[in-house]
């Protein structure tokens, strides 16, 4: 273990190390000063961001290829850290309102965050697995954080059982690949697959199982069943973080493994991911129409958005399109992260201390009584639909472009038609807010409001001037794995 390697993963080390320390420090913080722990957690994330930015252009591999540091990893890590900061800001008031404010919340969140960051720079299937568990286990606990409320416990249980099941698939897949190729390192796998003329079917089976395991994490159809229940039952602040963080983490691994490590078998995973993408978009959007509870609605919406991001994979199966497809997916993850977290912020503001106020009907009258909040929600809904001039539109534009470029015209058509379907249920929220009478009583809390306003502004500004974000995404190259 050399110093260079340690420096390369410094941001991850800061987050994980600081979380461990904070676990201890929290014991000595008096209960009435509950604001100290989140503040310290946020400072830790800021330190990690500074460390990350200071070496943002670094391209190297560490720990003998176990870790890859490249533009792709750096950009995703930055996204995770920013989302983490927003998640802390949004959770603070909510936890106190629900009377579940405990310091562990923030340390668990940071552990999960370090798992996501590690995932983005994994160069070895073992690291993928370890970071997947590091990402997931804190989330299982967080989902049950509102204990002893039964729906929270139920959510934690479901999430844990299905997550463990998915991990099982994942490990089995890794084992099969190791059995065939004799290595778990991504570049070793490439080399050994290139060396043979026909690819052993066991390796294909292994790859498929890895896809199943990660498909669970990103909530792609048909591995999505846990999503609505878990999203609904978990404390809303956890759901908000999970819906963007865990999803982006899963995609970080999917994109890296399938685009960089298995390009030789693209002919096989290309069509497979194409069907997953189409089914996910279709089912997520159709099922969302029937929902009356905003958390369930956003859960299905997050399934649908996993489908849109999944479009990048079949597009990337065409080598010439792969770089743009990858950038499109990254851009979409950023766009989705900003927008979706903002929308969950509104849900947090409207949830009452006893955990009600989560039906879409409860939003009636928001447009008249709280125009700023309603306007922000309108922006988020339009962005999730993909109506210009929002960042959500830019994201879809980029991904559909990649699909058409790869001659997947019908997939792009499925994409636009399901976007049309999604307009129906996103618009319904706007209808309820502006066109029905009611008396909502949202919380007005500084940190939460600031997060929501920032996300809304970012949604519009990056929709009108996507240049800087596109630039960032276009520099996020994946380091060539072959020496």
């Amino acid at each position, binding site marked *: 273990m050399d110093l260079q390697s340690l420096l390369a993963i410094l941001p991850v080390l800061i987050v994980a190390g600081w979380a461990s320390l904070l676990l201890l420090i929290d014991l000595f913080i008096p209960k009435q000063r509950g604001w100290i722990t989140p503040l310290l957690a946020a400072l830790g994330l800021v330190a990690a961001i500074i460390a990350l930015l200071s070496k943002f252009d670094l391209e190297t591999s560490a720990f003998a290829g176990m870790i890859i540091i490249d533009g792709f990893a750096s950009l995703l890590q930055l996204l995770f850290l920013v989302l983490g900061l927003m998640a802390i800001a949004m959770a603070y008031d909510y936890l106190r309102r629900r009377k579940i404010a405990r310091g562990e919340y923030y340390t668990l969140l940071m552990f999960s965050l370090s798992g996501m960051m590690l995932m983005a720079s994994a160069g070895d299937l073992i690291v993928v697995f370890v970071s997947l568990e590091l990402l997931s286990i804190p989330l299982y606990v967080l989902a049950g954080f509102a204990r002893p409320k039964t729906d929270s416990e139920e959510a934690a249980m479901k999430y844990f059982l299905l997550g463990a099941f998915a991990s099982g698939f994942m490990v089995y897949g890794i084992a099969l690949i190791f059995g065939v190729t004799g290595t778990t390192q991504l570049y070793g796998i490439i080399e050994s697959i290139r060396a043979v003329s026909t690819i052993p079917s066991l390796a294909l089976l292994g790859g498929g199982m890895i896809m199943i395991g990660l498909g669970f994490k990103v909530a792609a159809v048909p591995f999505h069943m846990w999503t609505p229940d878990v999203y609904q039952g978990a404390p809303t602040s956890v759901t908000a973080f999970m819906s963007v963080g865990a999803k982006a983490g899963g995609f970080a691994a999917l994109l890296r493994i399938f685009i960089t490590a298995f390009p030789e078998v693209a002919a096989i995973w290309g069509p497979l991911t194409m069907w997953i993408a189409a089914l996910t978009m279709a089912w997520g959007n159709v099922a969302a129409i029937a929902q009356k509870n905003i958390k369930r609605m956003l859960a299905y919406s997050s399934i649908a958005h996993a489908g849109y991001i999944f479009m990048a994979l079949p597009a990337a199966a065409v080598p010439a399109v792969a770089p743009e497809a990858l950038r499109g997916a990254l851009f979409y993850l950023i766009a989705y992260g900003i927008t979706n977290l903002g929308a969950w912020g509104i849900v947090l503001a409207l949830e009452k201390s006893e955990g009600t106020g989560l039906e879409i009907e409860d939003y009636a009258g928001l447009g008249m009584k709280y125009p700023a909040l309603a306007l922000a929600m309108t922006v988020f809904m339009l962005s999730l639909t993909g109506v210009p001039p929002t960042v959500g539109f830019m994201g879809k*534009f980029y991904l559909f472009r990649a699909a058409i470029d790869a001659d997947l015209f019908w997939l792009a058509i499925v994409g636009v038609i399901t976007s049309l379907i999604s307009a129906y249920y996103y618009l319904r929220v706007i209808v309820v807010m502006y066109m029905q009478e009611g008396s909502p009583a949202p919380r007005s809390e500084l940190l939460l409001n600031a997060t929501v306003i920032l996300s809304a502004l970012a949604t519009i500004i990056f929709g009108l001037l996507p240049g800087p974000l596109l630039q960032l995404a276009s520099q996020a190259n994946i380091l060539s794995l072959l020496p």
Partner: protein
Amino acid sequence: MDTMLTWVTFTPLLGVLVILLLPKDRHNLIRWVALLGSIVTFGVSLFMLSRFESSFPNLQMVERRSWFQIAGVEIEYFIGVDGLSLLLVLLTTFLTPISILSTWSAIEERVKEFMIFFLLLEVGMVGVFLAQDLFLFYIFWEFTLVPMYFLIGIWGGPRRVYAAIKFFLYTMAGSILMLLAILWLGIRFESFAVPDLIQQAGIPADIQTWLFLAFAAAFAIKVPMWPLHSWLPDAHVEAPTAGSVILAGVLLKMGTYGFLRFNIPLFPDAAVRLAPWMALFAVIGILYGAAVSYAQRDVKKLVAYSSVSHLGFVILGLFALNPQGIQGGILQMVNHGLSTGALFIIVGMIYERRHTREMDAFGGLWKIMPVYGALTLIVTLSSMGLPGLNGFVGEFTILLGSFGSDAIGSPIYAGLAAAGVILAAIYMLFMFQKLFLGPVDKEENKVLKDLNWREIITLVPLVFFIFWIGLYPKPFFDLMGPAVDNLVATLGTVSMVVR
């Protein structure tokens, strides 16, 4: 670089900014600021007109800047005006202050939001007519949906929510297909700028057909062409008066303009080949719209369906693909904006007084409201195409063009469309008779007040142009002539090849 057109497009935003700062219960102040903002915009657009060189056939006052790059393709902020779009820009900036004036007493609730949405809508509409980059065009095109959705959904009639959602979904359904076609063009030619795409040409004929159809899906829904019109009666009837005026006056023209600006020059082979089909659907729309209008008992619905009929004429003219047809089509877009806009204002005026639009509730209004009656008569006659008023000039030119059109290939369409003119006379006069003639047999009608000064001022500018275009249309044709000739000349070479 010339920033003239940016000013035309975004001046309403200044009004929006001022309104945002005003307290929301100062209704009159907000109205005045909105009116002033839209009048200033109109003034700026007149300045643009004064700088317009009508003998020059290509884009003028072009502003072209790099906006951002996506996948290596430059996306530009690229706006320009030519003879095809100039009149429509002026129509938009002209109708907006009139619409705002027409809502003066009709909108009493949430005036601030109403005016903000209205001015935002103007930005979107002007942008649609000026954008010369497909991406920029799409942004403006989709953006107009949002304010209009709110205008219908918040300030509309009893079934406003249904109408607003239907409007949004219908229009979006069309435009997403166009989006795919735009993406295809962008990938294939590595540019989204319309003039560049036209020059590159060389799209294989069968692909042209598909692209034509994808663009046409968006535009035909917007126009709306039969059989895609079913959102229109709902949206029109439920929208507040000003919304209907803008919807009929400008938003529908975005569809016909789209055919003119994109479908015809970008996919000339397909345009020539599909022209008979377009003419067929246009004629069905003319006759169907007229027949359904006749069956209506609600005045607003009647006017709404008459739009389907009138815009059929526009499509017929455009796809005659000869100078008369296209010039007539453009002029008829303006005419329809003026007359139908005026008709919706007129309907709004009576609705404000009686809160009903059923024809049976009226009768003999002429005796009680003579000024109202006289103005209505002029507008009605204009809408049915009486010689000497604007509608006649447009329809006559269109019929002339389509009768001798090579592209359409048969004079039958023009003949059937001419029957539509007669039908228009029947339903329009029927409506006028029901409302204004006969005895005053309802007590409520006897106490109605005639128009006040504000209402007269709202209608007079429209009537002025109705006469001007009807009596001396030459200046209007001169503005578009060179651009239309230019467009037809590029088509001429194509139709030779196809035939």
